[in-house]
């Protein structure tokens, strides 16, 4: 019995951590995202060299065939460093969708590109967690029409996976006729979202069903929770460091009971979240019966705790936390973004009630 990470997993996480710290520090993130969200291709290339982009893709297609738990550990580090790369969309969601619901031909044409980092795929699932502004698609005569909102994935994605009517899933070439991409700009310029419109656009169908779509939503939720975990952990560390250093009234502020208790409360709330996220990823890999419920809880709970930590860590920083000077708000916004995408906490809890047969 072991509830924890293997030595390999710890090493994987540490190496990603070191790589991002060196190669994609906040200054770089600032510079890259000055005019809006981007996908950092240079950092992506570095991650490719570390084997990360092919983590989920099966070995026979050049990937590593590793687990969601491993991918989650990577995403935690991406959250920790507010890294602007679209890892979840291509390397996790698209890799899972294609390897589980693709034909041999579809697998052969896309998985190798995912594995070697050369292919970017955008994924539009948000209507699974509630359609706004009449979003939705129709499929007629082999073509898609309509629009989908909040697609995750790099602006230069060559393929778009979209959730269509009747639990269907389609792949569309980004340069196919009738495709329009409209960037949506959010508070968080380290993560890319876009709206896609289709007008009689040719689309290739995958062998999806509701179960597969559920799995994709689950995986996405676990990854968002992991991202928030990493970002929130970092905010606590920054707050504690700041409190140990900053002086007011001739004392470091970290010696005031009020400040100490704010930090203690953040840590007390976040620490159990780590185990919840671990378990939810493990359940996705190995305990399918529990997977859906746990994904809902991980998403919802990290959203709530993340909001509390983001706000409290900012408060501990006082005015400095509110300015752009220290860049603390990059983490604040990343956590805010993760809260809403793929289902708000209220929505995720409603799903959890349904999964347990309570409604």
């Amino acid at each position, binding site marked *: 019995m072991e509830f924890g990470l293997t030595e390999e997993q710890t090493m994987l996480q540490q190496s990603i951590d070191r790589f991002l710290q060196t190669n994609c520090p906040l200054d770089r993130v600032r510079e890259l995202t000055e005019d*809006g969200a981007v996908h950092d291709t240079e950092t992506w290339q570095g991650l490719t060299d570390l084997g990360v982009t092919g983590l989920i893709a099966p070995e026979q297609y050049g990937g590593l065939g590793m687990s969601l738990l491993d991918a989650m550990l990577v995403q935690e580090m991406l959250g920790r460093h507010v890294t602007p790369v679209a890892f979840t969309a291509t390397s996790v969601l698209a890799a899972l969708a294609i390897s589980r619901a693709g034909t041999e031909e579809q697998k052969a044409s896309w998985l190798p590109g995912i594995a070697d980092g050369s292919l970017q795929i955008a994924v539009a699932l*948000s209507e699974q967690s*509630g*359609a*706004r*502004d009449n979003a939705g698609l129709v499929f007629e005569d082999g073509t898609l029409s309509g629009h989908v*909102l*909040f697609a995750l994935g790099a602006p230069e994605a060559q393929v778009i996976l979209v959730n269509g009517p009747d639990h269907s899933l389609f792949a569309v070439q980004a340069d196919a006729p009738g495709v329009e991409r*409209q*960037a*949506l*700009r*959010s*508070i*968080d310029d380290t993560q890319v979202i876009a*709206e896609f419109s289709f007008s009689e656009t040719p689309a290739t169908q995958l062998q999806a069903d509701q179960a597969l779509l559920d799995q994709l939503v689950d995986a996405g939720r676990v990854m968002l929770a992991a991202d928030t975990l990493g970002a929130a952990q970092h905010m606590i560390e920054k707050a504690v460091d700041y409190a140990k250093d900053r*002086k*007011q*009234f*001739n*004392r470091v502020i970290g*010696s*005031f009971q*009020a*400040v100490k208790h704010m930090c203690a409360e953040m840590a007390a709330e976040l620490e159990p979240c780590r185990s919840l996220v671990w378990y939810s990823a493990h359940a996705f890999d190995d305990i399918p019966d529990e997977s859906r419920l746990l994904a809902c809880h991980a998403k919802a709970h990290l959203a709530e705790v993340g*909001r509390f930590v983001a*706000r409290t860590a*900012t*408060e501990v920083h*006082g*005015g*400095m*936390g*509110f*300015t*752009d*000077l220290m860049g*603390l*708000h990059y983490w*604040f*916004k990343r956590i*805010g*973004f993760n*809260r*809403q*995408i793929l289902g*708000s906490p*209220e*929505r995720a809890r*409603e799903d959890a009630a349904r999964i347990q047969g309570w409604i």
Partner: protein
Amino acid sequence: MDLAYGPEYQAYRQQVRDFLESSKEHWPLRSGLGKPNAELRRWQSMLIERGYTARTIPKEYGGYGGEPDILKSRITAEEFTRAGAPGGLAGQGVSMLVPTLLDMGTDEQKQQWIPKTLSGEVLWCQGYSEPGAGSDLASLQTRATEDGDDFIINGQKIWTSTAHEADMIFCLVRTEPDAPKHQGISYLLFPMDTPGIEVRPLNTMTGLAEFNEVFFTDVRVPKSSIVGERGQGWLVANATLKHERGMLGDPNTAGTRLSLIIKLMQEETVDGSSLMENPVLRDRLLRLQSQVLAMQFNGLRLLSSSIKGESAGIARLIVKLQGCELNHQLAALAIDCYGELGILYHGSPRLRARGNWQRQYMFDLGLIIGGGTAQIQKNIISERGLGMPREPKPASPAVKSMAGS
């Protein structure tokens, strides 16, 4: 308990309404805190003439010269809000410097500055906060050393809104470096175009530069610029700081936000159902409505106490803490109602309410921190409101070793 305002005030209200109705052509297009244009200054002068702003400031200093009347002030504010009419000038010169000068300035200073400030001819910024002195404002480090009849100022200020447009600054500097920290400070007035002043915009998490940093390098200012006694700047500033804190957390802001959220919940849909049909979001809305109502009625109670000249005690001390938090929670609910749409910002397609909810959610956090953090507010409530003891002063390391503990 009598919520009616009485016939004199009914008449006054009607008079304000009539004025607003008949003056629409003069309403300036923009108002706010920055440098006023001619249109805005004309509007300001129309308002002063009728006592709708600068009501109690003596005529000789360019004010209306009326008796204080809290109800009339409130009625004016209510009617301007109801009509959506722009108010008078509201910068820190009008709201903070003018009361300070009236209280502590020399005749000459009053003559020189109040009329031009009220008319909008001179725009002021405030130089209090420093990067190293946040909650502990009195520990400020900007230094003024003597050089003949002048001070030479070196140091840095932060959170200086409108500094980039201001003509003048009212500024706290340390003139007596060896005095105890509250006693070595002086309150100075000087022009922002004095050589050696550099203004840099200060971006915040909202993505806007609502504030500035101001750097002083050998800035030469005549000693006659002092308001009050030398070394008593802390007292001078504190007399008006209270005003600033009292303004934060206004329950009417919360009331306006609540109405907007009700509207959005009735109009926005998810999967075709209105958000108001979502019982969980609705319950959150109702919890906040309870708090908004309680704070609004608390505001009526404060108004009533002011009219009677009574202290409202804790009821006043809590306004900033509760009000700012409430506003923040309202913005959070609005964001949550919008779901995925709630994260849009920066003029994105499909953006709702011009991104105001996200901006306010962040700016409110700044307000929770600024003007006395929530922690400082709780200290004040417990000490001044509940009579609890201050924290004991820590033994300094030197003293500790002397005492052998």
